[in-house]
C-alpha cells in the first residue's frame, strides 16, 4: 500500500514565462480552461495523501481497522475513480480545489464532483485529527470561538447537535464564513463541501456511516463526543485559521503566529 501512495496532490504549475509562450502557441488550451491532455507528453494524476500519523495511532477512539478501510479502501477508491473519470473528461488540468468549484457548477454538480470533493474532504479530515488530540484550543483560536459562539461549550454543543441533526450521509464542518466574517458550524450532505460556497473550512468530521459503524455501530453521539474530546487537532486548526486570516479580515483578535 505504501508503494502506491503518491505525495503529489497538486499539478506543478509552470513558471510564468512558459505560460506566456503557451498562450501564443496554443489558444485551444485557453478555450478549454485548463491544460489540454493532448499536447502534453507527461500526464498528471491526483494521488492519495497519507494521514500524518500511523494507522493505529487513533486507538481506541478510531480503530486501526476503520482507518485501514476508510483510508485504504474508500479514500483510495475515490482517488482512483477521479483519475479514471478525468482520463476522458474536459476537466483535466485543475488543482483539486479549483476542480471542486468547477465541478460543483453552482448547484448542478458534474459527475466528477463527488469523487473530487470526497478526495479533498477525506484529506482534510485526516489532517483535522491527531493522536492525543481534543481538549481546548489555545490563544487566538479560543478567543475567536468565544467571540462567535459565546463560549467553547456552546460551540461544542452546537457541533454535536449539528451532527445529530444530519440525516443520512454527510459531513459536519466548522467554517469561517467569508461574507459574515465569523466562524459557524454547518452540516452538508453526501459530498458537498463548503469550498463550493466560497467559505473556508476549519474542521471537518466525516458522518458517513463507514467512518464510525465498525467502532460505534449506530451510536453517533459517542463518536462525535470522542472526536471533540480526544481527536481534534487544534494545532492544525490554528494553522488553518492563520491561513484563513489572510483571506478574511477578522479584526481583533489576531491569531498569534507561532
Amino acid at each position: 500500500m505504501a508503494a502506491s501512495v503518491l505525495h503529489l496532490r497538486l499539478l506543478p504549475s509552470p513558471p510564468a514565462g512558459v505560460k506566456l509562450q503557451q498562450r501564443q502557441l496554443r489558444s485551444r488550451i485557453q478555450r478549454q480552461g485548463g491544460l489540454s491532455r493532448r499536447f502534453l507528453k507527461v500526464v498528471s494524476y491526483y494521488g492519495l495523501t497519507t494521514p500524518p500519523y500511523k494507522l493505529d495511532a487513533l486507538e481506541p477512539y478510531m480503530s486501526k481497522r476503520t482507518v485501514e478501510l476508510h483510508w485504504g479502501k474508500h479514500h483510495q477508491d475515490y482517488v482512483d475513480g477521479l483519475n479514471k473519470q478525468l482520463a476522458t473528461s474536459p476537466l483535466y488540468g485543475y488543482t483539486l480545489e479549483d476542480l471542486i468549484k468547477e465541478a460543483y457548477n453552482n448547484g448542478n454538480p458534474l459527475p466528477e464532483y463527488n469523487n473530487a470533493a470526497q478526495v479533498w474532504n477525506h484529506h482534510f479530515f485526516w489532517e483535522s485529527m491527531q493522536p492525543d488530540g481534543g481538549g481546548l484550543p489555545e490563544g487566538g483560536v479560543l478567543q475567536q470561538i468565544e467571540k462567535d459562539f459565546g463560549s467553547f461549550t456552546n460551540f461544542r454543543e452546537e457541533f454535536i447537535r449539528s451532527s445529530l441533526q444530519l440525516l443520512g450521509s454527510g459531513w459536519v464542518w466548522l467554517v469561517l464564513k467569508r461574507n459574515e466574517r465569523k466562524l459557524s458550524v454547518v452540516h452538508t450532505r453526501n459530498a458537498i463541501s463548503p469550498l463550493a460556497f466560497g467559505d473556508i473550512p476549519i474542521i471537518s468530521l466525516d458522518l458517513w456511516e463507514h467512518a464510525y459503524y465498525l467502532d460505534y455501530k449506530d451510536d453517533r453521539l459517542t463518536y462525535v463526543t470522542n472526536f471533540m474530546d480526544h481527536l481534534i487537532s487544534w494545532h492544525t486548526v490554528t494553522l488553518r485559521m492563520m491561513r484563513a486570516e489572510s483571506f478574511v479580515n477578522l479584526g481583533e483578535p489576531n491569531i498569534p503566529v507561532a
Partner: protein
Amino acid sequence: MASTALLAVGPPASHPAPCAQPATPHGLAAASSSCGEEAPRTGESSLPEDVEWIKQQPLPYALMMLASFNEGREEPHPPFFHAAQVWNHDFYWRSMKPGGGGKPLERLLKFINRDFGSYEGMIRQFMDAALTQFGSGWVWLSYEGSGLPYVKSRSPIPSDNYGRLVISKTPNAINPLVWGHSEYQLHNIPPYYIIMSSFIYKSLMNLFLWQPLLAIDVWEHAYYLDYEDRRADYVSAILEKLVSWEVVESRLTKTIARAVERDEHLRRRILRKQHLAQANGQSRARPRTRQGRPTGRQGDQEVARSSPVEA
C-alpha cells in the same frame, strides 16, 4: 404475511404502543444465516424530540409518510424521514426470508423477461443501481403503472399502455411510493385531517404510479459490519440467498389486481352516469349544439370558415 395490505403496515394490533419497533417476521436469528454474527437492525433505536409527535398520532406509517413528504418540495415535513424509514425497513424485512433466493416464480419471471430481457439482465441492472447510489439510499424493484387517466385511453406509444417493472434507486429515505404519489400534485390540501376523510383515503389508495415490490437497503449500516465496504457482495448475497420471491410475486399480483380494480371502478362510474342520463331521457351526455343552450364551442360554420393556420 402474504396478505399484508399496503396501508396496513405498522406495529401488530396486539401491541399497545403505537410506535413500538416492529419485529422482523421471522425473528431476529432466522434471517441471519447468510448475514453472519450481527443481527439485522432497523437503525431506529432512538427518535429525536421533534418526532415524539409521531407517537401521539394513530396514523399508519404509510399515510404519515405520504402526507409529510410535501410532494417532493425542497424540504419534507419533519416526520417524513423517520416515518419513511420505518416503512422502508419494514418493507425490506418482509422482502427477505431464511433460505430464500434462487430464481423467481413463473409469473414474476415472465414479467422480468418481458421488461429486462432476462433474469440476469435484471440482476445486472440491480447491481448497477446499487453500486452507483452515492451516499445512503435504497434500491427498488417496482411496478410502474401506466398512469393513463381513463379506462379507454390508449397512448400512441405502445409501451405506455401497460405497467412494467422498473428498477430505481432513491436517496436517504425516499421511496418510489411517495415519489409517484407526489406526481399527482395534491397541492394545497392540508395534510392530516383531510386525509382521514374517506374520499381522499380511497383516492390515495388508487393514485399509485410506482408500487414497490422489493427493497434493498444500501445505507452503509446495512452491510458494513458483515461485508465492510463490499456493497456488491452484499447485494448479490441478498439476491441469491435471501430474497423472498413469493412475497415479491404476491405484491405484484395485488398491484395488478388493484390496477384492474381501479379501471373497473372508473368504468362502473362511467356506466352509471350513462345509465342515469338515459333514465332521465337524455340520449347524449352533452346537449346538442343546435338545440338547447349554446355551448362555449364554435359552431360548425365557424369551424369551416376559420383558417387552419390560426392558433
